[in-house]
């Protein structure tokens, strides 16, 4: 359904993506793993045109084109079919929870207000935030904000939802509530790509795992195979580090460099 080929992207002289081939099929839940700086987020941002790629092709359904030559109107049409959940939620601060969800329906898609309200209720119910519909984002916890952000992007029923480290800004408790929400969507057959550091989520919810390192895809395998029988040495090294880090007892400082 969505595919990029030979995708290159750089910030100035710093090459971040060095020829990525990436494909999502209908109904797939893909976890993208890799250490910080491996290019996971940039991949999602290039696919959504939040970052302009240097070269590559993009295919979305029947639409296929050189990614550097996609016109502004085509970008907007593509974005209408892509949901995006940001690390920092990015809820519109001047709008209530309900207005945040309605905005994409009423303003962007010119949907009838009544119809849109019914959808907003349904989506907010789905993420367990209907009781906060009239609150403003700053009155909510991070986990609640992220659940609203998820409701906002599923409201217009996109063909695929891209999650950019949806729980990285949250503490473990809130992480769990957000991951449960995402897992619930996955079980309903929503197609999604989740950039994450949550191994148990990747293992239990994703059906395919992509491991990235230094701007290339190192391993692309079904989730079970990825964790139980990784082919690449780099993947094994990465999984070992992650397991060691998880094993560090509270109060101890991990030897490996912690992120941020």
């Amino acid at each position, binding site marked *: 359904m969505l595919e990029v080929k030979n995708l290159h992207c750089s910030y100035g002289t710093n090459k971040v993506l060095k020829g990525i081939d990436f494909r999502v099929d209908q109904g797939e839940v893909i976890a993208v793993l890799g250490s910080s700086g491996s290019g996971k987020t940039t991949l999602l941002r290039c696919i*959504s045109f939040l970052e302009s790629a240097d070269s590559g092709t993009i295919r979305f359904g029947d639409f296929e084109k050189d990614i550097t030559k996609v016109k502004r109107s085509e970008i907007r049409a593509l974005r209408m079919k892509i949901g995006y959940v*940001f690390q920092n939620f990015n809820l519109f601060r001047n709008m209530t929870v309900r207005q945040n969800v309605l905005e994409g329906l009423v303003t962007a898609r010119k949907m009838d207000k009544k119809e849109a309200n019914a959808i907003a209720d349904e989506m907010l119910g789905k993420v367990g935030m209907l009781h906060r519909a009239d609150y403003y984002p700053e009155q909510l916890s991070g986990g609640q904000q992220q659940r609203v952000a998820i409701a906002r992007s599923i409201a217009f029923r996109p063909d695929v939802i891209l999650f950019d480290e949806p729980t990285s800004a949250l503490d473990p408790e809130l992480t769990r509530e957000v991951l449960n929400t995402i897992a619930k969507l996955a079980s309903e057959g929503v197609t999604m790509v989740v950039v994450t550091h949550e191994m148990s989520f990747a293992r239990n919810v994703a059906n395919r795992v992509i491991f990235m390192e230094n701007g290339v895809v190192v391993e692309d395998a079904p989730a079970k195979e990825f964790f139980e029988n990784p082919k690449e040495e780099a993947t094994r090294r990465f999984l070992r580090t992650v397991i060691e880090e998880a094993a560090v007892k509270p109060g101890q400082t991990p030897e490996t460099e912690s992120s941020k």
Partner: protein
Amino acid sequence: MSTRILEILISSLPKLLLYCVKVTIPLTVCIYAISLVLALILALVQVLNIRGLKQFVRFYVWLFRGTPLIVQMYIIFFGLPSLGITLSAFPSAVIAFSLNYAAYMSETIRASIESVPKGQVEAGYMIGLNYFQIMTRIVLPQAAKVAFPTLFGSLIGLTKDSSLAASITVVEMFKVAQQIASANFEPFALYCEVAFVYLMLNTILSALQSYLEKKMTWKTKN
């Protein structure tokens, strides 16, 4: 306080208030309205990065912030007639003040627009909004909240600065106070009185500001 001074204060107050309502307030409102519109245009030119125009705006801001307001007024009222452009006092004051205040206020507005996090714009794009919708529905409302206290501060500053128009013969409240003071030789009493009127005017404005700021919050009441 002697009864004579008290009598002067009481008898001059209605005249001061009359000119406050008749000239000072209309002058202030006129200037503020014009400079607000102009400032918004100047700020948007910069934010939208319109080529050519942007350099012009930077030049404009540099020129009008870098020279004294009173000198700008003198150039327009006393200077332009020698080029064949003669304007009466009130419009001269309005033009000079508006050009000057627009330069300052455009910077306030520009900074407030730039203070809106980029993520807000990106989120707007990703739910399918176009740039115009993002600006009008997300960025500008958030920027307005940031800019509001500073822009309101400009209004308070302007009510006081409007007294400078007296120097180019606009008969506003301060000019009237000057006239009364020179007629009865009580400058101390008269200038204190006119200061008090300005103070009361701005007390009302400050109260209005707090009220409006409370209304602009993004919180539900419970």
